[in-house]
C-alpha cells in the first residue's frame, strides 16, 4: 500500500531551485534512503515533509490524503510525521523516559516501556540526557520519534555526528528497531554505505530530483547513468561502441547487461572489483601503482591505451611492474551518449 507519495515537488530559495519536480513513493513498512551529496536538497526535502518548509509546487500525499501543496498545508503537529534530527536533540530538561513519552499520552507507560526495551535503554530510563553517550542519545531520539506510532518517521543523517565505529553498530540497531516496530521510514544520507546497508530501497538524489530508485543491489550494479555509477562508488569509465551486440572497447569486447542499440556510441562503467588481473609474462599491461588496505588492495594498471583502477585481494595482489592480462568479470552497463538506461 502506498504510504507516502510525492509528485512533482518544487521549491525555490530566492533564485535557487532546490527541489525541481521531485517524485517519490514509499510503501507501508518500507525503509527508504534518499542518498545524495551535500547541497542537492535532501534537508529541504525532509523539512518539507515534516511541515517546516512550504513547497512551491507539486503535492505531498500521506495515506492518500493531501498534506501539502502550493496553497495547502497541514501544520507540522497534525501530520503524524516525526523525525530524528542529525544531532539527537533531546529535551535537556526531561529524563530519558520523559523524552520518549513527550509525544504521547503521559500515562501510556506501556508504550514507553516497550520502546525502552526495543532500544535497549531500560537501565537508563531515569537518566538525564547530559549523562548519556552519543549513541545512547541517538537511540532515545529514535524511540521518541517512534513513540506516537507515526505514519512516517524521518531520519536526517542520523549518524553523521557519531564516530565511525559507533555508526556501524547503530545502523543495525536502528534498522532493527524500525522494522520491529513496523514503522515506515525515510532517511536522508550522503553516506553510500549507510544507504546501501540499511535501506530496503535507495533513491539517489541529484540537484533537486531523484535520479534513480531501486533496491540497493540493483542501484549499485545497474546504475541508471554514469553520474549515478560514479556517485555510488569507484568506477572506471571507458568509451565503447556497439558492434554485433557486443561493446567494443580498449579493453576488448564486453557483454552488455542492458539492451543496446546496434552502432550506438557511449560509455561503460566498470567497478574496480569487477576487473580480474591475471599475471602473464607476455602481457602488454603492467601494474604501475599499488595501495594496500589490508583486506584488499587498489592497483593502477597501465594498458597499451588506458590507465585503470582495479581492486584485488590484498595479500595476493600483483606487485608493481608485473605484467598482467586485464579481464572484465561478467557483463557491463553501457550508456549510449545522449540517453540513459531505463
Amino acid at each position, binding site marked *: 500500500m502506498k504510504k507516502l507519495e510525492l509528485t512533482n515537488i518544487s521549491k525555490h530559495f530566492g533564485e535557487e531551485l532546490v527541489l525541481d519536480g521531485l517524485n517519490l513513493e514509499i510503501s507501508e513498512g518500507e525503509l527508504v534512503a534518499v542518498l545524495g551529496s551535500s547541497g542537492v536538497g535532501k534537508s529541504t526535502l525532509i523539512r518539507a515533509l*515534516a*511541515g517546516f518548509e*512550504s513547497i512551491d509546487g507539486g503535492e505531498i500525499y500521506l495515506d492518500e490524503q493531501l498534506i501539502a501543496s502550493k496553497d495547502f498545508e497541514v501544520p507540522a503537529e*497534525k*501530520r503524524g510525521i516525526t523525525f530524528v534530527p542529525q*544531532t539527537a536533540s533531546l529535551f535537556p530538561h526531561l529524563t530519558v523516559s520523559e523524552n520518549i513519552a*513527550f509525544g504521547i499520552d503521559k500515562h501510556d507507560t506501556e508504550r514507553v516501556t516497550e520502546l525502552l526495551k526495543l532500544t535497549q535503554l531500560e537501565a537508563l530510563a531515569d537518566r538525564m540526557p547530559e549523562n548519556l553517550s552519543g549513541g545512547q542519545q541517538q537511540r532515545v531520539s529514535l524511540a521518541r520519534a517512534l513513540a506516537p506510532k507515526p505514519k512516517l518517521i524521518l531520519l536526517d543523517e542520523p549518524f553523521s555526528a557519531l564516530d565511525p565505529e559507533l555508526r556501524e553498530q547503530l545502523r543495525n540497531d536502528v534498522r532493527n528497531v524500525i522494522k520491529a516496530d513496523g514503522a515506515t521510514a525515510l532517511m536522508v544520507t550522503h553516506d553510500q554505505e549507510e544507504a546501501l546497508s540499511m535501506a530496503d530501497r535507495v533513491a539517489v538524489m541529484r540537484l533537486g530530483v531523484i535520479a534513480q530508485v531501486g533496491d540497493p543491489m540493483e542501484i549499485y550494479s545497474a546504475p541508471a547513468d554514469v553520474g549515478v555509477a560514479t556517485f555510488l562508488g569507484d568506477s572506471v569509465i571507458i568509451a565503447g561502441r556497439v558492434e554485433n551486440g557486443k561493446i567494443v572497447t580498449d579493453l576488448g569486447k564486453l557483454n552488455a547487461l542492458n539492451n543496446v542499440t546496434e552502432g550506438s556510441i557511449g560509455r561503460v562503467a566498470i567497478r574496480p572489483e569487477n576487473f580480474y588481473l591475471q599475471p602473464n609474462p607476455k602481457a602488454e599491461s603492467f601494474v604501475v601503482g599499488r595501495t594496500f588496505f589490508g583486506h584488499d588492495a587498489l592497483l593502477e594498471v597501465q594498458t597499451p591505451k588506458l590507465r585503470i583502477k582495479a581492486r584485488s585481494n590484498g595479500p595476493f595482489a600483483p606487485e608493481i611492474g608485473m605484467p598482467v592480462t586485464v579481464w572484465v568479470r561478467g557483463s557491463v552497463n553501457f550508456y549510449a551518449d545522449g540517453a540513459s538506461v531505463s
Partner: protein
Amino acid sequence: MRQKPPAVLVLLAVFATLISLVPIGYLLFRGSQAADQLLAEFVRPRTFELLTNTTLLVVSVTASALLIGVFQAWLVVRTNLPFRNFFAVAAALPLAMPSYVSAFGWVSLFPGFYGFWPSWLVMTLTTTPYVYLAVAASLASGNFQAEEVARSLGKNRKRVLSEVTWPIIRPAATASSLLVALYTLSEFGAVATLRFETFTIGVYNAYRSSFDRNAAAAIAIVLVVFTLVILFAERKSRGRVGNLEPHSGRRGRINIQGRFGFAGGLFVFAGLGIGVPVAALIRWSFIGTSSAEVQRLFDALIATIGYSVAAGVIITAFALAIALITLRYRSTFARSIETSVWVGHALPGIVVALSLVFLGANVFPAIYQTAWLVMIAYVALFLPNALAGIRNPVSQIPIVLDDVGRSLGQTKIQVLRKITLPIVSPGVMAALALVTLTVMKELPATLLLRPTGVDTLATRLWALTDASFYAAAAPYGLLLFLLGGIPAWLLNRQIRKTIDATT
C-alpha cells in the same frame, strides 16, 4: 518560508517596542512643534557652557577609566602581582556602589567637595570596573601563545605589548570605554550631588526652576544627539569583539619590577572607590536618625521593592518575547524590533523621564503621576539590559528542539510552554534578578515621574543629601549599597570563573 512566531509573542514584542520608542518619539515630536524656540535655545551661551562641561567630564572620565582599567586588568591577569585573587575582586567591587551613593559619601565626609575634579574622581572610580572587567575577560580568554611566538621572533617586551597584546584586547577596551562615555553622559545623581552642571543637570534644572519645557526639551535633544554619536561608535566597535581564539596550553606570568608597589596602588584605588563611601555610610549611620525617618525608610524600602519587582517581571517578560522572536524567527520584522529597543539604551534616564512628563501631562493625564508612567520609563530604560541577559540562554536552545516538539504533535504554544520555557527558566530568573536590582537604584526617572508622596530609597537619599541631612541619608545609602552589591557579586563570580578556568 520560515515559520511565523506565535501571536502572543508578537503582541508582547510590539508592545514593548512601542514603549521603547515613545520617549524619543514624543521628544522629537515636541521638538518639531516648537522648532523656532528650540533653535533659539540651542545657541544660548548656557547651552554652550553645558556642552563644554559635559564634553570635559565625558572625555576625562573615559580616558582615566580606560588607562586605569586596562592597567588593572593586565596586572591581575597577566603578571605576578601579589594577592591577585583579592585584587581580581577588589577592582570590580566599586560596581556595587551606585554612583550617587559614592558621591554622597565623598561630599558628606569632605564638605565643599564640589565641582569638576570631584565629579571626575567619583565618576572615574565608578566606571573603571567596566573597563577592567571587559579587558580582564579578553585577556583571560585570548591566545597569548602569540606573545611567546613574538618573543621568540626577537621582539622585546615593549614591542610585544604594543604589537601583540594590545591588538588582542583593543576591541574589549574600545567597547567598554565607549560604555563608560555613555554612562558618564547620562549620569544624573552623582554630578548633581557634586554640583557640576552637565546636560542631565541642565535638563533637570531647566525643568525644575521654571517649568520651561522648551528649554528643557532643547537641552535634552542636544543630549540625545551626543548620546547617539557615542552609541553609534559603540555599536561599530562591538562587531569586532569576541573573535578571540580560545587559548591553549599553559602560559607564564610576566614578572614585573616593584610588584608590591603596584599592589599598593591598586589597594589605594579600591580604597577610594569603595572604602571612602562605605566609611562615610557607616560613620553617618552611627550618628542615628529620627524615628519618623525610620518609618520613611521602611516605606521607601517597600515602595522600592514593589516598583522594582513589578518592573523586573514586566521587563523580563518583554525581553523574553523579543529574544524568542529575534533569535528563533529571523526576519526584517524581528531585526527592526531589536534595533528599536536599543534606542531606549541610548536615552539618558532624565530624557526618558522628561519626555514622559510631557506625554503624561499632555496626552495621557489618566496615568500622569501614577506608577504606570514610572513602569513605562523603566521598560524604556532597562529593556536592553534584560535583553542582553536573556539572549544568551535563549540562543543556546537549538531550534531543532522546536521542530522535534512540533513533529510530536505539539502546537507552537505548547512547544513554548513544555520545551522552551522550562529550558530557559534559569537564565530568565537570573535576568529577572539583575533587572530588578538595577531598577531599584534608578534615580532620575523615578524622581520626575513618581506619584506624589511616594519615595524610593534612591529619591529619598537624593532629597536628604541635597538638604545636607547626611545622618538621615546614610541608612538609605547603606541599603542601596547592599542591594547593588548583589548583581556586582553575581557578575564577579562570572568573571572569576572565566579567569580561573583559563589560568
